[in-house]
């Protein structure tokens, strides 16, 4: 029956029938046809070449009415076209010199709708796991267009804020949503937290950057590093929160940005280290005292009796050489502990900061 039916070409371009156009494109959508098939259908139905240009997805297709591909060409201004709803000039068109046919608008509209469906469908498939793309996204020196494309290819939801997360590899496992978009940067692991994934309940030691549009991820990565430098490892020698958010740092962010090795020169920092050598419980206790508003709360956190803690606090104040139960003393202790962490973490983020920042870390208070 083969040749007989050939005459009944289903895509007869003479059929100027809007219903057939719609039905045909609907059938392509239902059958999960690809982009080229849609452009081809437009070319066949309109009996002239049809094209699709999508800069961000690096797509440029032209198909002739016989179904063959044509090489790319600059679009002539008098071809009927329909923009796709992206900001970057994506559109579909028919290459009809001369007066438009009645069905041209219909064909273009259905083509645009079909292309949108395909782009949505192909976007939401499992995002690529590509560390190189993550690295590109965090690199402030990389071309913005390349980074936009990387965000697309990774499947980052468009137009929604994301956060960079800086963590210590091997310390504890990364949850899967972060692991999916992660790479190594220097000695750290860099990941991207999508919206809705606030990176709560992290077991791994990490700094979490501010929420930014994907194109600004280098800035969030920098913020994540700033936060990471202020973390402790939760041990007796380096107590302190293991996970810090840049959003919560306030003025400490500036401290973290600008100080480094210079923090060693502060006498209070040296005193803390000396005391830690003498009294094994010293740093954990001091950290609790600094973190909590009252001695009572600190005692609860340390699981010791309130009066035990009072005695110990006195001992520590004497060893430090300044009171820690006054507001000023409390603040001085807090600052000393922060500076000690910054000093200790000095090497942590070396070779990881790919966001070039006006103030370099190496200069510090002398």
């Amino acid at each position, binding site marked *: *029956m*083969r*040749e*007989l*039916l*050939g*005459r*009944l*070409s*289903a*895509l007869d371009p003479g059929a100027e029938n809007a219903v*057939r156009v719609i*039905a*045909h494109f609907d*059938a*392509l959508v*239902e*059958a*999960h*046809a*690809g982009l*080229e*098939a849609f452009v*081809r*259908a437009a*070319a*066949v139905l309109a009996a002239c070449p049809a094209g699709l240009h999508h800069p961000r997805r690096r797509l440029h297709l032209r198909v002739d*009415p*016989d*179904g*063959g591909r044509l090489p790319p060409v600059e679009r002539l201004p008098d071809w009927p076209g329909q923009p796709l709803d992206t900001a970057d000039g994506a559109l579909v068109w028919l290459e009809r010199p001369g007066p438009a046919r009645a069905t041209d608008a219909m064909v273009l509209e259905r083509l645009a709708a079909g292309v949108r469906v395909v782009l949505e469908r192909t976007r939401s498939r499992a995002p690529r796991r590509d560390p190189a793309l993550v690295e590109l996204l965090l690199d402030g020196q990389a071309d913005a267009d390349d980074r936009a494309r990387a965000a697309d290819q990774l499947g980052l939801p468009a137009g929604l804020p994301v956060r960079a997360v800086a963590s210590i590899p091997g310390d504890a496992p990364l949850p899967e949503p972060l692991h999916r978009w992660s790479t190594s940067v220097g000695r750290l692991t860099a990941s991207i937290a999508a919206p809705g994934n606030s990176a709560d309940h992290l077991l791994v030691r990490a700094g979490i950057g501010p929420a930014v549009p994907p194109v600004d991820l280098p800035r969030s990565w920098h913020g994540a590093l700033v936060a990471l430098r202020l973390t402790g490892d939760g041990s007796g020698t380096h107590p302190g929160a293991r996970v810090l958010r840049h959003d919560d740092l306030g003025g400490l962010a500036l401290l973290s940005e600008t100080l480094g090795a210079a923090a060693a020169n502060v006498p209070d920092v040296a005193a803390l280290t000396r005391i830690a050598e003498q009294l094994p419980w010293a740093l954990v206790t001091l950290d609790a005292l600094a973190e909590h508003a009252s001695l009572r709360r600190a005692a609860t956190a340390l699981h010791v009796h309130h009066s035990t803690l009072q005695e110990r606090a006195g001992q520590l104040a004497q060893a430090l050489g300044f009171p820690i139960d006054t507001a000023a003393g409390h603040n001085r202790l807090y600052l000393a502990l922060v500076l000690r962490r910054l000093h200790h973490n000095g090497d942590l983020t070396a070779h990881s900061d790919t966001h070039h920042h006006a103030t370099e870390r190496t200069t510090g208070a002398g």
Partner: protein
Amino acid sequence: MAVTRAHPPFDPELSAALAALPAGLNGQLRLDTIADQRAQIAPMLDVPDDLLRRDGAVEMEERQVPGPAGAPAVSVLILRPAGLAGPVPGIYHIHGGGMILGNNRTGVTDLLDLVEQGVVVVSVEYRLAPEHPHPAPVEDCYAGLVWTAEHAEELSIDPARLLVYGASAGGGLSAATALLARDRGGPELSHQILLCPMLDDRGITASSQELDGEGVWDRNANLTGWTALLGADCGGPDVSPYAAPARAEDLSGLPATFIDVGAVETFRDETIDYAARLARAGVSVELHMWAGAFHGFEGFAPQAAVSRDARAARLGYLRRALGS
């Protein structure tokens, strides 16, 4: 009867083409509707002379040639490139139409490009079933081939490059004609081109039961076509391999073969079987099964990507085969 099995999915572009098909082109074919089908199809079979002549690039001639002994003359359509100098390859074309429809112009437009490039086409019109059951159709085809080979020089056909070519029922008849040519000692064929061929009346393959009211040429239409050709013998023990080539036991000594089929058609499995058996018998075989394709997909949706690929594959093979 048999339970309908699940079939592979259709190619997206072809699926859309199927949706656009006029209804009633498929399973409605019954023995008692053949006359209606012919009447319905007739205008579509009309291939005007102008279309064939291609503004003078092709020379066209109709001739009556001797039919089988005791049978009427057979009409052949001869197409030659204008200004032909020396001998060129010859394509002996056998049209399709389920054994019951068509004429010697059916399907021949697909070959016009080749004619222009330097090939002579001889297309035979054979007596149709059910009015003329087996062996009339295949014997007409064989008689026309004999005449073509005997007049090769006059037709400017290189006798070493004469091949048989057909689609669907034409593919089945081409395979049968090649069997006859082998078993009767001639004519010599260089190749057989079998496009989604109709090879097996028995309806025992899986794919022969997969389509019921779907696709093109479903199991019902197939039963009608074979019954028209074979009558009560259809599916039984007495069917000749020259009617249903799938029944031939020995496939050795047949010409080099190009064979293609869609993945979603009644003929899929008998085609694959035939290709495999040819290869095991030492015949050179090229087999293409086109993903998601229904029977006759190239004709329905010639611009679809898979149709273009199928055409290119066939032309690529012919170029290699004919050395041109």
